């Protein structure tokens, strides 16, 4: 990275981090019951478990906000990793079959075991995501093949479509489609501390790891031949990158459902600000994805309070116009 690019990255990071802190505070304070800032300070100093507001704060608001931050950052980062590795601007963690695997596992559980507890469904969808990813990876590695990016995209798409179709078929036969639609619309309302304690360390480690390999992704995005001639161990890097993507997207999908917008479009949004070097894109994606997620979740709680609007709709109505505006602005600069 040259000097001016480093400055623009630093500027972007500091602006987004500031915005992120403000949004997270708002996300803790605002909601169907309003909590004063003084109450938060008091609750942090001496928590009182008989106080209604303190319970809301510790059991609902704080886990939810932390969940938003981590999930947004992880999806965005996973999307950037996949786009860099496959050199395809339309890739995100979904093409590894992660979303499809999770919904397949959920379809089976809902149809055969009936309605189940949220923690159980989180566990099931994580297992499904891991299974699908292993399937894609196993098919790629059969007979000691190389991890060619075009084939990876095709295998991933075929496996995801297969699993999605099986999930749809099962839910049509057992008439459980509507239960699944609630899941696939996405949402973070059900996140509790117990799940975060398991998921957060995994996500944090994976986020740090993705910053560490961002330089290699940057080289990888030049193409396999160039990367090899620059002395990069292409196969090893790609395998590592896939593993990190699973660790980022698996728990996130399990907790919040497939939120495709953040993973697919955040890297494109970030590109308008920091350029096309993955060393800048990957760190910049984290606060940007987190902002999108916290912001959208906040709006989904407030727009029709006390009822919650599915977060997918918020992305559809606010995120997409924003993306289109940025994309068109970028277009004028280029042409």
């Amino acid at each position, binding site marked *: 990275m040259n000097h001016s690019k480093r400055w623009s990255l630093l500027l972007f990071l500091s602006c987004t981090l500031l915005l992120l802190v403000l949004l997270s505070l708002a996300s803790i304070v605002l909601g169907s019951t309003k909590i004063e800032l003084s109450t938060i300070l008091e609750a942090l100093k001496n928590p009182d478990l008989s106080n209604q507001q303190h319970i809301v704060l510790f059991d609902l608001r704080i886990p939810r906000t932390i969940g938003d931050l981590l999930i947004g950052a992880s999806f965005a980062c996973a999307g950037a990793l996949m786009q860099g590795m496959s050199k395809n601007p339309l890739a995100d963690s979904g093409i590894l079959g992660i979303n499809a695997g999770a919904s397949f596992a959920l379809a089976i559980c809902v149809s055969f075991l009936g309605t189940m507890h949220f923690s159980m469904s989180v566990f099931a969808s994580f297992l499904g995501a891991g299974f699908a990813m292993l399937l894609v990876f196993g098919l790629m590695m059969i007979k000691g093949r190389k991890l060619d990016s075009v084939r990876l995209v095709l295998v991933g798409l*075929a496996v995801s*479509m297969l699993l999605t179709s099986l999930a*749809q078929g099962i839910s049509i036969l057992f008439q459980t489609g509507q239960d699944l639609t609630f899941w696939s619309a996405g949402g973070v309302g059900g996140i509790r501390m117990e799940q975060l304690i398991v998921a957060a360390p995994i996500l944090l480690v994976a986020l740090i790891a993705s910053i560490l390999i961002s330089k290699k992704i940057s080289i990888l995005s030049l193409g396999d031949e160039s990367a090899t001639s620059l002395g990069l161990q292409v196969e090893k890097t790609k395998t590592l990158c896939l593993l990190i993507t699973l660790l980022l997207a698996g728990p996130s999908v399990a907790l919040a459902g497939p939120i495709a917008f953040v993973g697919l479009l955040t890297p494109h949004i970030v590109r308008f600000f920091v350029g096309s070097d993955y060393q800048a894109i990957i760190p910049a994606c984290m606060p940007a994805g987190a902002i999108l997620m916290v912001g959208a979740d906040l709006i989904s709680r407030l727009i029709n309070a006390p009822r919650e609007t599915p977060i997918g709709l918020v992305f559809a109505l606010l995120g997409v116009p924003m993306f289109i505006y940025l994309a068109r602005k970028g277009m004028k600069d280029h042409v």
Partner: protein
Amino acid sequence: MFKNVKVLFPCLIVLILLLLVLDIQAGYASIPWNELLSSLFAHGDETTRFLIVELRLPRVLASLLIGIGLSLSGCVLQGVSHNEMTEPGLLGINAGAGLMMALYLLLFQNQSPHFSFLLPLLAFAGAGLTFWIEYKLASNKKKLHPNRLLLMGVAISMAITSLTTILMLKMPDQQYAFVQSWIAGNIWGASWTSVLFLTVSMAVIFGLIAYKSRILNALALQEEVSIGIGVNVFKESRLFFVLAIILASLCASIGGGLSFVGLVCPHLARRIVGPNYKKLVPASVLIGGVLLLVADIGSRTLFLPYEMPIGIVATVIGAPYFLYLLMKN
């Protein structure tokens, strides 16, 4: 052996004819072979004749045509956009059609008697409108950039899909099931009028694409190369995009959201006959037809008395074979 198109194409055509007959025979009410023949060529029993000529035959022909159309559309789009993930559904064609349907069902709870006639029109309007918006957004000073069109398509179809999901959650169970199976891809309300309309318009588009397959070959090369050999890249790729989208929305209007066919059939064809569009276009068309006919037979026989959406069957049959080919080559 099948690498040679002189062997492959006749084989596929014979296969399609065989499957057509099998598909007419398949279904809830089974028809003996002699009655099938007599009602096709002569005047047989009145009910059987009605069942075959008015119900089965349009549907069977519609699934063949949809397979052909989607596969051709995907084949053209992949070439023009230089992206192996492209398929008509990615550009929001199915999403637009689905949203229109869901809106109509929610606004006019009582299904009008003209519903089966209205459905294709609604779907076509939704699909066309979606593409028009994307096209306007992605073109700058009348120049269209394929990559931008794809990104716009993905963003807009995400928005539309979410809106449809929200609408669907407000629906009663029965309507929900209808829209769900439509989105999964189902040949619904095929009539002789729609089959005829589909045939004529597809024949015209297919003719144009086949006539221009040399230009398609050039466009599939790198952009600099195609400019170098004297192709007007912007103008020609715009034409191909529009043709492919019209084709896909025609298919979506009858077949619902079938995303697998348009994505995978061109790849299957490419792995069998290679990248030359002169061979690739007919090969993917034939493969698309075969896949949807097989899927149609499956959708009407495997889960009796239920009818599984054809899109699901097509994917479950097609994906493993596609994966096998990917492993082999």
